[in-house]
């Protein structure tokens, strides 16, 4: 009788203990700081899809939208760190300094900064996606499908991320069609449907029959649909906005990374790291290919996707020349991450100058 009592007491204690541990583990709270509105259907929207995946995995999340990349960001971060969040994701390049500054003040809170390179404190990690791999796929499709050999490209701001994308796209297109030209128009906005569509219209009027974009709204694919030319979706699958025009989209898939990192915080296994994932790790996803793409191109694209994922092919494989004909990457070599991260020159075949 006595023994049974003790045994049940101990077992219930153990049970209670595990329950509390489970409860504590589940109690991890993650916060997300967004540059734009969650309704932009582009950059921020995709981060929020990732946040929902964290929520679905059983963790509590909060988010703050439309946070300017200024002293305001610090204030928001401090408030989030103070109100019991264990891990904070800051999802825009401009949050780099505020993130590191606030991280110093809250050593027990983990900080995850997207697309940056500063990890000044042990509780700051950085992460980004190799979108240029996706752009190599788009370039392959564009080079194969253009009839006018003029490809339009609406760009946002002259930063390495965007220039890397233009280069990767152009190199891949040249590989399948050496005669193509990439015409770039800088819209100087990430997100202004009116301006973006005006830029796209200008490119179409000048003979581009395929339009690529590195801005966030769906306006460009809609203009392409109206004009009867092809286009590619950005950040999310934009097929439903322009079913005929959109050949495929490059999707940003943050969910798996977010869930993994929040789980790591919960298990106490979180450590500082720098993540730069591509197609292979599922951070960059290619949407379904449109039926307008002929089967030989489709096969080529599928193969490239597989090879990029396995690492057999690198999007920046030499010989690569810049616009003036100087060798950037030697024959048979690939560009290293340092070169990719600071890429500020066009490759041969891109028209125009990079605005400074």
């Amino acid at each position, binding site marked *: 009788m006595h023994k049974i009592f003790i045994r049940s007491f101990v077992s219930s204690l153990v049970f209670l203990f595990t329950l509390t541990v489970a409860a504590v583990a589940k109690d991890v709270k993650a916060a997300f700081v967004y540059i*734009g*509105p969650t*309704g*932009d*259907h582009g950059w921020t*929207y995709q981060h929020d899809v990732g946040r929902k995946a964290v929520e679905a995995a059983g963790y509590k999340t909060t988010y703050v939208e439309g946070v300017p990349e200024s002293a305001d960001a610090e204030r928001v971060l401090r408030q989030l760190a103070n109100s019991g969040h264990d891990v904070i994701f800051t999802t825009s390049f401009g949050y780099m300094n505020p993130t590191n500054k606030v991280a110093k003040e809250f050593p027990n809170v983990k900080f995850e900064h997207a697309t940056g390179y500063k990890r000044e404190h042990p509780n700051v990690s950085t992460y980004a996606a190799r979108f240029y791999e996706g752009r190599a796929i788009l370039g392959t499709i564009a080079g194969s499908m253009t009839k006018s050999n003029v490809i*339009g490209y609406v760009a946002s701001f002259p930063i390495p991320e965007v220039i890397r994308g233009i280069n990767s796209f152009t190199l891949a297109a040249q590989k399948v069609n050496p005669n193509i030209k990439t*015409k*770039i*128009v*800088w*819209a*100087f*906005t990430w*997100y*202004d*449907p*009116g*301006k973006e*569509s*005006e*830029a796209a*219209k*200008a*490119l179409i*009027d*000048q003979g*581009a029959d395929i339009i690529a974009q590195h801005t966030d*709204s*769906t*306006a460009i694919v*809609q*203009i392409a649909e109206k004009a009867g030319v092809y286009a590619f979706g950005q950040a999310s699958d934009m097929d*439903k*906005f*322009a079913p005929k025009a959109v050949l495929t989209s490059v999707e940003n898939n943050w969910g798996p990374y977010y869930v993994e990192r929040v789980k790591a915080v919960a298990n106490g296994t979180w450590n500082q790291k720098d993540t730069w994932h591509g197609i292979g790790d599922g951070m960059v996803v290619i949407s379904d290919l449109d039926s307008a793409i002929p089967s030989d191109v489709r096969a080529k694209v599928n193969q490239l996707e597989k090879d990029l994922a396995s690492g057999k092919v690198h999007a920046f494989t030499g010989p690569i020349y810049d616009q003036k004909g100087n060798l950037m990457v030697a024959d048979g070599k690939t560009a290293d991450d340092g070169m990719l991260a600071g890429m500020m020159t066009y490759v041969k075949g891109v*028209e*125009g*100058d990079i*605005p*400074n």
Partner: protein
Amino acid sequence: MIDINFVGLIITSIMASAVPLILASCGELITERSGVLNLGVEGMMIIGAISGFALMTVTGSLFIAVIGAMLAGILISTIFAFLTQTLITNHVATGLALTIFGIGISAMIGKNFVGIPGKEFPVLFESLKETIPFLSPILFGHSIVFYFAFALPFITNYFLKKTKIGLIVRAVGDSPVSASNQGINVKLVRYSCILYGGAMCGLAGAYLSMIYTPQWIENMTGGRGWIALALVVFSTWNPIKILIGAMIFGGLTIIQFHMQAVGVRIPVQFLTALPYIVTIVVLVVISRDSRKIRLSTPSSLGKSFYKDN
């Protein structure tokens, strides 16, 4: 050799981008002519944009959507009218609040409408589009809102100069006290002008979300309301000059993209700033007569009026 049809296409793009500016500016012009400064243009436009898009999605009727967008513009400007005319609040502060309110509430309503593709808006005279080179793409194949926008400056001009109600509006704007002594109901006139401005801004917003870029995205007016406001001032309250200003602004925006695509070696930052600079310079030059400016500025602009009985 530049293809003449290509020039036609560019002019068509320019006109299409000028439409929302013309609509909003002409609406605001009437409001300001009655002596009320409504800085809420951006807010009213964005409310029109979401209302039009939401109604189109829910009811499926483009007609209801366009009318609804104008009514929404009227509704939100009623708030402004009530505050500034009945409660005699400061025009500038209330207008700014209206813009912030509009952007916020449109984002809230718009949550459920993100990511829904818009509908095709019917165009007129599409069959004539191929008949005359250069001219037909400019003249034919546009939405009814497009034609209305290009008629509006002339209608507005006629209204202000030749009709009795137009003269009453100007009298109220220039001297509400004298107008009131003449037996004119200043409050009623100003209320009407504010609501009319709201309707036009609502229509401008609906044009953006239903015709120009058929979709809803938060903040999609992208500062066009502020440009419309600036056009009113720089045009010295002259509707015809608004038309010129809107065309210059739209034109330079479009042409700078073309120059980039052609590869003209001018710094892109300069090209991007060009529409703003040139529009202001041109409008300042064409209306530089300071006496004329003083005469054309509504004397009571932005000043509250109340009658003590």
